[in-house]
């Protein structure tokens, strides 16, 4: 069992850009949209032009849950199952026709492109991971965030999960600011072997997590049929009560 404090969160999907919209959605969940992209007005125009939709979603979620003063001071984990697949496909098509690749397009399709652009946009020089784990991507992103909290316990970790699947189903992104202490919901995480086939879930894992966070259910279980991942609400014993500000959200 490993525990982390969720200091704040933010999420984005077309038409749902702030906490109120997600609370309304959690009360009456309906299908997420896939068309549209965040404005990311906080980015300089030059940088904004280089951002794919996935990058915009990840930066919107990441900047949204991290105050300006903290953005350069957190370790980061970027999790995406499909990553830049929509951009990569067009490179493969060029290759198959033996057409030259654009160097800029190539360098923006690496899986850590979003991590690189966050680092530049936030002037963040701290360690950063980019991961993928098929249908366990969100849970394993959470594991990698815990791994960063282990390496440097006093520093918060920004976990950003986003996806735009090839089949153009829901596009979404979520940012979680996790730490070993501070104000916020304390969450205990564990994993165990599963021999049961995965239960079909209505929403992508990150969105299931968000729905759980907004509701008051004590426990969330997700899994791929190979591993069962559990998140439990626990009392925050390490909260710094002196800092009386309520937990920040989107």
């Amino acid at each position, binding site marked *: 069992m490993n525990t982390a404090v969720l200091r704040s969160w933010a999420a984005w999907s077309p038409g749902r850009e702030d906490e109120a919209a997600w609370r309304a959605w959690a009360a009456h969940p309906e299908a997420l949209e896939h068309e549209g992209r965040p404005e990311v007005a906080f980015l300089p125009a030059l940088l904004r032009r280089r951002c794919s939709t996935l990058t915009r979603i990840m930066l919107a979620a990441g900047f949204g849950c991290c105050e300006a003063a903290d953005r350069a001071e957190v370790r980061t984990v970027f999790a995406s199952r499909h990553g830049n697949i929509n951009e990569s496909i067009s490179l493969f098509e060029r290759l198959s026709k033996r057409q030259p*690749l654009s160097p800029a397009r190539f360098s923006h399709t690496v899986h*850590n492109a979003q991590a690189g652009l966050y680092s530049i946009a936030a002037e963040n*020089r701290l360690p950063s991971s980019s991961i*993928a784990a098929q249908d*366990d991507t969100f849970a394993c992103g959470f594991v990698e965030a815990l791994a960063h909290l282990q390496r440097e316990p006093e520093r918060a970790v920004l976990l950003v999960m986003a996806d735009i699947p090839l089949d153009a189903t829901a596009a979404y992104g979520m940012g979680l600011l996790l730490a070993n202490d501070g104000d916020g919901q304390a969450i205990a995480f564990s994993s165990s072997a599963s021999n049961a086939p995965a239960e079909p879930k209505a929403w992508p894992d990150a969105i299931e997590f968000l729905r759980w966070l907004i509701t008051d259910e004590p426990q969330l279980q997700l899994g791929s049929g190979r591993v069962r991942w559990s998140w439990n609400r626990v009392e925050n014993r390490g909260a710094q009560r002196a800092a009386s500000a309520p937990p920040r959200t989107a």
Partner: protein
Amino acid sequence: MMSDPPTPPPCSLTALAMLNALGRSCDEIWPRLVSGDQGYLTIRDELVPDRSVWVGEIPGPLPAIPESFRRFACRNNALTLAALEQIHDTITDVVAAVGRDRVAVVMGSSTSGVSDAEGAIRHHVETGSLAPSFHYEQLEFGGLSRFVAELLDLRGPAYTLSTACSSGARALASARSLLSLGLADAVIAGATDTLCGLTTNGFSALQVISDEITNPCSRNRKGLTLGEGTALFLVTRETGGIQLRGVGESSEAHHMSAPDPDGLGAETAMRTAMRDASLTPDAIAYLNLHGTGTALNDAMECSAIARTFPSPPPCSSTKPLVGHTLGAAGALEAGFCWLMLDAQENDEIALIPHVYDGDFDPELAAIPLATKGMRRPTGPLMSNSFGFGGNNCCLILERGPA
């Protein structure tokens, strides 16, 4: 300000499996590595239109992916399977001892099954349908770690890190953290990358591929030589053997495909790794360079080393021997350090030589390069990996108490 890092937990690199251009096992690779043999690099004419490029390719057939794992059947996973076979018995023993739910898989890759996907999409362009052997999971980065986990029926966390050329080093760093957190009692960690059209054409477009074999630190250097490879470690909490002693990481906030010319990110990674290992610069016995042979990398890396070490240890790049294996490089080069420590005799290690044309670039900060036959007292060994997007990871390996 940074506070002191937590005391690094024991992290034993208990077993190593490897394939690269120099050979298909550690026993085959080590003598060719320590003698600096460049004879295993080859030329490919069809990877980049109108261009011949040197590559470090793994020759010969690879094991077939079992039929029930057909959705994972790609060259990247076949290379990984060939490595798994080398340490299969050790893995089986550890899984039996700790339980399959206590074994995690952390892999690094920047290519996954791209080489197979390219064929499938060429088929699509030519015939209107994808090649029947193609499965999307071959192309997913997460497919590599899932393939290993499902093949061995492991039930711990399984994920792939993809931070370009630091992926493989980062996989070992995360493996150590998972052991320390108690999220696993053993981790299969490493990295695999395959030669493919995407990376060769991409780096060619970036004008960083050399027409000749890469020539790091030379005034005549013209860029990198690409390669492919796999290195897999079994990582446990044992205290003896060869240990992962230090990890240092940084980002650069600089550029998507070029390093910070001052090498500040590289310097931070090296300094943090030594701090993590509670070592001072004079303790490091050897440094495996990132050493890609591009104008920018070698300049910034040498200047970072010269600032970090009052008296730098002997250094070498192994990329003139196996090519730059991109996402696998960090794991392979940690593996090369492992082989040096494993071959240690009478408290001495044989250093892997820096093979180049010998014309050290006077514009670079001076660093000592290891030469063939050089031996040194054993000690902690450092390996640098610097990735695209400004993602750096430096590792320190050392022999633990016997």
